[in-house]
């Protein structure tokens, strides 16, 4: 039985099962089993790539960031103190790198980084990692029309199901502010993607 995201008498909800599974994976990984690293990588790569793509609107940059997140994780996993879930840890890593990326590219941003066209799969080289569907390209473009904070809230909520409270913690703001950003973001996306949303 499950209530409030918590297990009753050892019947863990999916989130807790994931957490237990992740902790087992990390335990095995720390014990030197490379199969565990592969499992972690396979489990989260798509979700992290999607998150990064909708946040940045730049597939190449998103690939680099997620690649970097996994490399850093592999290098530092022994030192990581996982008090929460692995998923949240990786998501936070992507968010931090995205913010750094934006900060480092401020000059580009001043000339309209958020407005650059999405680099689509077809325009990229043979070693492209992520292959975007038309719908994801459309969504990513629309997301770039939102202020970054709204984009972050929408992405985290829609792509990773993070609760508002956690997003608020990540954005160092109040839950109400996050909910406001979410509301405005949804309305704006709705108007931008009107026909697509109703399909």
């Amino acid at each position, binding site marked *: *039985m*499950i*209530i*409030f*995201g*918590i*297990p*009753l*008498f*050892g*019947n863990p*909800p*999916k989130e*807790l*099962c994931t*957490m*237990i599974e992740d*902790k*087992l994976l990390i*335990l095995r990984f720390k014990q*030197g089993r*490379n199969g565990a*690293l*592969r499992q972690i*990588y396979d489990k989260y*790569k*798509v979700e992290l*790539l*999607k998150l990064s*793509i909708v946040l940045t609107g730049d597939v190449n940059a998103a690939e680099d960031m997620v*690649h970097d997140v*996994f*490399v850093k994780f*592999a*290098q530092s*996993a*022994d030192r990581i103190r996982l*008090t*929460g879930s692995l998923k949240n840890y990786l998501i936070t890593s992507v968010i931090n790198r995205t913010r750094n990326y934006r900060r480092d590219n401020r000059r580009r941003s001043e000339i309209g980084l958020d407005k650059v066209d999405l680099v689509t799969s077809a325009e990229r080289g043979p*070693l*492209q*990692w992520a*292959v*975007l*569907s038309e*719908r*994801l390209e*459309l*969504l990513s473009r629309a997301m770039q029309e939102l202020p970054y904070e709204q984009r972050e809230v929408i992405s985290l909520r*829609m792509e990773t199901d993070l*609760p*508002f*409270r956690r997003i608020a913690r990540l954005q160092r703001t109040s839950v109400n502010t996050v909910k406001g950003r*979410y509301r405005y973001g*949804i309305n704006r*996306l*709705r108007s931008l993607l009107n026909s*697509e*949303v*109703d399909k």
Partner: protein
Amino acid sequence: MNSADKIKRLFEKAELGINPNADEKVFQDVFQARQKITTKTPAIPGIWRITMKSPIVKLAVAAVIIVAVLLGINQFGGSGTSVVWAEVARKVEASRGLIFRCTDSTASDEYDYSIAYTSPRYCRKDFYKDGQIIRTAYVDFTGSDTNTLIDVFHIHKLCMTTTFKKSENGLFLEWRNDWTNPSFLVQTILSGEHSKLGRKTIEGVLCEGIETTDPACFGSLPGPVNNLQVEFRLWVSVETGYPVLFESKMSGEYEGQWDESGCVIDQFQWDVELDSSILELNIPPDYEKVQRPGVVGP
């Protein structure tokens, strides 16, 4: 469907493919980054220590008590004035061993249902998926100052043993004591408003039921849950005086999110003498065994 739901659906439909060649190259980079780390693996903090430090899990652990209360309803729910319910309390108290099935109404990918075997000194719970046991949890309450949880994850071929000091379990595992303490349960159940449901036949057994929708039966909750709503129904065989069916629905707002759940507990076997082989540890030899002694308090 509101705008948020539609956008959510759009996100779900926005697919991302992975180029397998590039994927392998990226993974090799990650793998090599790992290989370069030659530092010997430091001591790993206990999984269960980590788990128990988590507020969510503390809440979860505390919620085990709530289950005890729920099962208390199973076992001792009553108006306090009815002869039938007083008899239920007496019979359940005298029950040596108990087997029951628990099915969540909330869809779970992890398992379909679980079967619990309990005795005053041991407890075992098997989690089933597609007819196969995917996980078995054993609890041993017989230690003088420790309780032991042995969790066997069959999919992972992993057996994790955790020892808890009885004095430091917090709420975890102590629920067993509460469960076996009828006066605690009767007191808890009777503290809430409850009503009789009359009689009905369940799988050929004439039953009498009671219902409570009083959240107060939980007592004080271990975390901030708003708008808690509960609906518990217990059906007891008129002939045997033992519970036959327990249904629950709960909902509330936790961490800003609405959450709801429910379960059906049935297939009760009361006052059974459990074969010792059921509660005996059965761990295949090829399973990895992990000890978590660090969980025991400082």
